[in-house]
């Protein structure tokens, strides 16, 4: 088809905007790369100073040069997995309710309320956790203390919810109305339409929602530092949720302020940061691969 002639000036503008957007896209990748290089530069010396067997150990006593990362990595994974196990079903169900079932006026109220939840500062959530959630956890579970992984899990689930709901709701919204009409035309019920048609079509968007929720949970610092007890024990065994746990983020936040710059402990904290980066990256990569593999089957908006 013949492309209609465009005035030269507009053409030039188009070019500039295109380049600007390209520059922004490239610089986002560049920044991630720079962060990674910075972590390697600051954490690298630790790999020379501390034997690998020490870093692979199960005890974290930085004051005495015992730098086992395992309890920290497992601690972060435990609270994140727990938080997602709660917030994924709750979040997707809420998104379905808002997007598919609720009448217009309910939706108009619910959406801003959920966005307000996202705006509550994490230190405030932590304070509520200390004063209310932690005593409740102690009383109901009979754990020796209320400052446990489970307390952290509840609060992180609460904090990941708004992210999951908003993005899952966007994904449902992006499923073409014709899909629903087709399902109804085949005499599917409302539930069958949601479960068999709309949710599968929105699958990539929902996975993105969960990934951002994971990012929120694994990266959260202040709240877990306040309520999870920060004991660097190996969170293995059935009672791990009812025991305190120390996450990678809380470790960095609690210790970075006091270490002597350039000391071994300082470099090891960057190794912790590197481990956090790699774990997050691996989770996102796994999710992206799932999306790419199934992309052809879905009609949801691609958000990743």
């Amino acid at each position: 088809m013949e492309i209609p002639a465009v005035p030269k000036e507009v053409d030039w503008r188009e070019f500039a905007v295109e380049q600007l957007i390209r520059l922004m896209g490239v610089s986002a990748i560049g920044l991630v790369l720079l962060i990674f290089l910075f972590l390697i530069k600051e954490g690298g010396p630790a790999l020379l100073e501390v034997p690998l067997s020490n870093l692979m150990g199960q005890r974290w006593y930085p004051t005495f040069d015992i730098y086992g990362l395992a309890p920290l990595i497992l601690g972060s994974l435990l609270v994140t997995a727990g938080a997602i196990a709660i917030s994924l079903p709750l979040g997707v169900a809420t998104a379905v309710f808002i997007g598919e079932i609720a009448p217009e006026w309910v939706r108009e109220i619910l959406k801003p309320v959920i966005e307000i939840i996202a705006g509550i500062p994490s230190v405030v959530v932590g304070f509520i956790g200390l004063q209310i959630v932690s005593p409740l956890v102690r009383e109901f579970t009979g754990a020796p203390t209320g400052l446990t992984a489970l307390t952290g899990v509840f609060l992180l689930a609460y904090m990941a919810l708004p992210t999951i709901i908003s993005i899952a709701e966007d994904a449902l919204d992006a499923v073409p109305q014709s899909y629903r009409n087709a399902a109804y035309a085949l005499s599917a019920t409302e539930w069958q339409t949601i479960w068999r048609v709309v949710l599968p079509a929105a699958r990539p968007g929902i996975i993105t929602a969960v990934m951002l929720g994971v990012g929120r949970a694994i990266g959260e610092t202040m709240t877990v530092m306040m309520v999870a007890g920060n004991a660097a024990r190996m969170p293995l065994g059935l009672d791990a949720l009812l025991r305190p746990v120390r996450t990678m983020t809380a470790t960095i936040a609690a210790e970075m302020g006091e270490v002597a710059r350039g000391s071994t402990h300082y470099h090891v904290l960057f190794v912790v940061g590197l481990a956090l980066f790699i774990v997050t990256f691996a989770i996102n990569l796994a999710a992206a691969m799932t999306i790419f593999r199934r992309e052809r089957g879905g009609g949801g908006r691609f958000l990743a």
Partner: protein
Amino acid sequence: MLLRRCLGYFFIPCLFLLFVSCGQGGPTEPVPSRTTIVNVGSDTMVNLALAWAETYHELHPEMSISVTGGGSGTGIAALINGSTDIANASREMKSEELEEAERRGMTPVEHIVALDAIAVVINPRNSVAELSIPQISDIFAGRITNWREVGGEDRPIVLASRESNSGTYVYFLEKVVRRDDPNSSDLFSPEALLLPSSEIIGLEVATNPNAIGYDGLGYVTPKQKTVRVARTSAGPFVPPSIDTVNDGTYPVARPLYVYTVGEPTGAIRDYLEWIVSDEGQRIVAELGFVPLAGA
């Protein structure tokens, strides 16, 4: 509780801004020359340092003292970097910090400005009233895990400790958990809760009947119960107080330090002299710390 700390963090920069803005004044009006002393360091001492700074500013309006917490290590690092005039520390400088200072051609000078008793605190509902240092050591190292073993109810013991970067943590580890024995390699139990502030330790101890914690006497509230402590199981068991620290009978007390680069001169010397004077030491007592004997 926590609020006090948050307010502190909010208030200190505000105070600092206030001083700075006062200091600038209008260029036309003659402003009396103003001296600012920067003071960074120990979280244990931050309320004390703030009280000194405020009172001193009232007495000498031409002097401004900006106070920031962050921890003993932060203060000493700032002193070595030259970003603070005086550093507060609840522990002595470590040898590596001294080396770093000397490498930069500095001679840090240590001043003892107050004393602090470390109280061992439990929930008021706990019936235990006295513990010996060997017992406290066994508790915090994880060798005793039930209150029954030290004469209490059949309840698990929950340990509430400061974070490992705290001067109080290091002091308690060396003097109590390791019983002042340099050959001991005892550590805090890995089950110990490492809590980011005195307020959260206080909250956990006040609300959890299983908990035991330790903190500076100035941070103990009526919702916590202090334990009488003895050096050995034979006693005597002594409660922490100003008197028992001064007469040396309470076994877990430490000095609080201020470090300067070289012997202080001018305004800084005047300020430090005022701190150890009767007036400065009266503030020490008001905030629950222990004034220097003979002051």
